[in-house]
């Protein structure tokens, strides 16, 4: 399986996701932001970080780059795109997934482990994953997902919510919401479910010596689904 990770100026989780993808069997290529052509890929990943310093608005400048036009075309043709953290912010800026990401509720950067509940397994990202609740890791300042009432209805009607923040038992009360996201939303799909944006970093959970191993489950499952 071939994957591509886009490196923008200011991306800083590009190496981490490269390590993770390779560990679980992807043939990964790093793609420079100034490139125009996207290499042939089964999966394109927009990594975490602070693309263009996140000045102006998180992800907004990256969304306007030439390579992103290729990514947009790839996604619109049904190609699989995963946006993690800053990558998610870029996805919402391009409009590939609905909504916006505001500053966290307490206006503070948060770095910690969280639990997320998988809402929808009828897609290539989560199909056949045994667990329903995963322990992931977040590290962001602008992860407070927001959208209009109408949008929310549409998102829910189309089953576009991918992940909800929850506790280890899957309860999704407000107290398990780390950043103020509407309805505890941690990740969403586009309508067709080939584009997935999430704030947590599965690539930081791929080794028992790290924060945990639920990221390994995610990547293993993903590559199996792609085969």
């Amino acid at each position: 399986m071939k994957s591509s990770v886009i490196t923008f100026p200011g991306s800083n989780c590009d190496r981490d996701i490269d390590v993770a993808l390779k560990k679980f069997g992807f043939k990964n290529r790093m793609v420079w932001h100034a490139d125009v052509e996207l290499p042939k890929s089964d999966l394109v990943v927009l990594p975490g970080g602070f693309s263009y310093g996140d000045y102006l608005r998180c992800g907004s400048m990256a969304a306007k780059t030439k390579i992103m036009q290729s990514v947009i075309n790839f996604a619109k043709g049904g190609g699989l795109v995963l946006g993690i953290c800053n990558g998610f912010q870029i996805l919402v800026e391009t409009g590939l997934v609905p909504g916006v990401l505001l500053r966290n509720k307490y206006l503070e950067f948060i770095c910690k482990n969280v639990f997320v509940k998988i809402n929808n397994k009828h897609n290539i990202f989560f199909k056949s994953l045994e667990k329903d609740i995963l322990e992931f890791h977040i590290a962001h300042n602008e992860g407070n997902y927001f959208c209009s009432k109408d949008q929310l209805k549409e998102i829910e009607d189309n089953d576009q919510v991918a992940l909800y923040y929850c506790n280890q038992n899957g309860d999704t009360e407000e107290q398990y919401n780390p950043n103020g996201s509407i309805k505890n939303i941690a990740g969403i799909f586009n309508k067709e479910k080939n584009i997935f944006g999430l704030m947590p970093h599965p690539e930081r959970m791929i080794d028992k010596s790290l924060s945990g191993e639920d990221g390994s489950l995610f990547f293993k499952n993903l590559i199996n689904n792609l085969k």
Partner: protein
Amino acid sequence: MIVSEQIAIDHGLKKDEFKKICQLLKRTPNITELGIFSAMWNEHCSYKSSKIHLKTLPTKGKRVIQGPGENAGVVDIDDGDAIVFKIESHNHPSFIEPYQGAATGVGGIMRDVFTMGARPIANLNSIHFGSPQHKKTKNLLRGVVHGIGGYGNCMGVPTIAGQTSFDSSYNDNILVNAMTLGLVKKNKIFYSKAAGLNKPIIYVGSKTGRDGIHGASMASANFDEKIEEKKPTVQVGDPFTEKLLLEACLELMTGDSIIAIQDMGAAGLTSSSVEMASKGNLGIEINLNNIPCRESNMTPYEIMLSESQERMLIILENGKEELAKKIFEKWNLDFAVIGKTTNSKKIELFFNNNQVASIPINTLVENSPVYDRKWKKTKMPRRNKFKKEVFKNLKIIDVLNKILANSNVCSKEWIWQQFDHTVMGDTIQKPGGDAGVVRIHGTNKAVATSVDSSAVYCWAHPFTGGKQIVCESWRNLISVGATPIALTNCLNFGSPENENNMGEFVECLQGIAEACEYLKYPIVSGNVSFYNQTKDIGIKPTPTIGGVGLIKNYSKMVTMEFKEVNSIVLVIGKTEGNIDQSIFARYILDEKNGPPPEINFFNEKNIGETLLKLIENDLIKSAHDVSLGGILTAISKMCIKGNKGINLKKPKLLIHELEYFFCEDQGRYIIEVHPNNLKTIKNILDKNAVHYDELGTINDNNELYFNDKIKVAIEELKNSNTYWLKDYMRK
């Protein structure tokens, strides 16, 4: 403009110093030259009050590749790998403008590390604030934490450990010390020593603006009421540009284009160019018209003294300009050839085809003033005799809850959760333990690191305090199973012109030197920050030690949380029950005088090395050093982190239980061991003459039992420990 004595004094120079400059030059300097002298001769750059004392520090060791004198120290961690590390202060800017002050402190120290060719792999910080009740404390703390996070998080370097304290002596002079570790191949280390004639000097990074002009002089002056006027001297950070600069520099460093490289830190272009020329015993010629400027009509004076951030000076091999230019352009950074090396042994500056400065390098460096300041010895305070009645009305659990919620003991989670501590995917011990640990990417090795200071002990008796912090740093590394290698220090003190403050400096340093010598724990880099005071009152002496240790096989790393029910808990090292200067004496008994706990080097080393042996033999399930708040505080934290309870018994000793459980005697660790291994462990401890007391057994009911009588839920202890800071900040 004709430079008068008054202008020199306004630049922070003393009358005698100005006279000396005129003698050395055999003429009166012009304003640009005066600016350069004032920048090079201030305390921050010249170390004029500390130099003679710093020379006494032990700086050599079998793993030391580079000691003090470079951008950072370097130590060998085997297999051709080396760690580059250093700590630096950014105290005064952070008090004036906490966000930018702290942010640029972090940026500056990372630059020092990647200047040497190392990719930063871990950040740490040691931050000290005034009393929580002081009106400025909350905003300063919030600003500093946001600033450190704002810069470090954007750079994508994990902040894995730190230290925060509150003390009224920092009310008007907070401390912000930032430390960075970087990883480099031993044969790819870059230095700042210029070499060769007519080599191109290039400027890369951000453009030069008017920010930070005279920052280093400001950092070398006392604070007064006019402090607000100094805001324009605080630099503004741009972590995005620094991230690009990091990647561009490391890309250029893969080749062999660079002869020497130096970041533009304090005193900007002035100190970077002078230092490179001085180390290479060369001259340097710069055309100031070629400097990329952000603002129009900047004068030579302003260009030379600007402290704009994210800039580097590089001396290239001839003919490598195009190659280097391509790399920096790829990363959207400014690149300019601004001059060349010469044999004049002078710094010569040109602007609009006129020579605007010509100063022999040695007058700026070797001939800079050196002072042997007067200093006063601190007498050992007399020990307090606490009458037993004092303890009568104290309930041990109440005391414990109070201590756990003390601002200096409580969990600092509110702070470190705002720092990305897991980016780069190699953090195997997060903040909140004894030391942070990161793996060396792709290997079985890991490095452990911690920052420590004990201002209260150093204030009570500087010599003992100096010894104590080195030992504490050593202990923190050992607690996670790392062999201590070397350290960096940040020496935060009051005015060197005050005999008492100078005495604190001299004696702390003597203590540090003795401990480093005994433990074979050399100092490879550091920084001195004097004039930490408001008006005439100095801060408590706060030398900060940043230690680095090596874990050869990270599967043997130890953490502090209790692991398993029925494990036995021991304290190793002897408990004498001296409570002077403990949190217990200071905050519960309200006794602020007395001597700090004594250090016994033999025991310290013996116990530490024995514990490392036990860890090496997989006999230790968890470990934690005993520090602030004593045994019971240490155990409570291990219970809280591990979500386990414990049945405790005080050993049959003559000391009162409050003294036993809350004293801060040094050289002790709490260890958790499997019952089946107890005998083996006791044998090893006996054989090595290590004292131990058996304290109890871990239980599964999440309560701390005390002599079978008193009990408290771990949840209650956790609440005491966890919420103080969060509540304080969100109220």
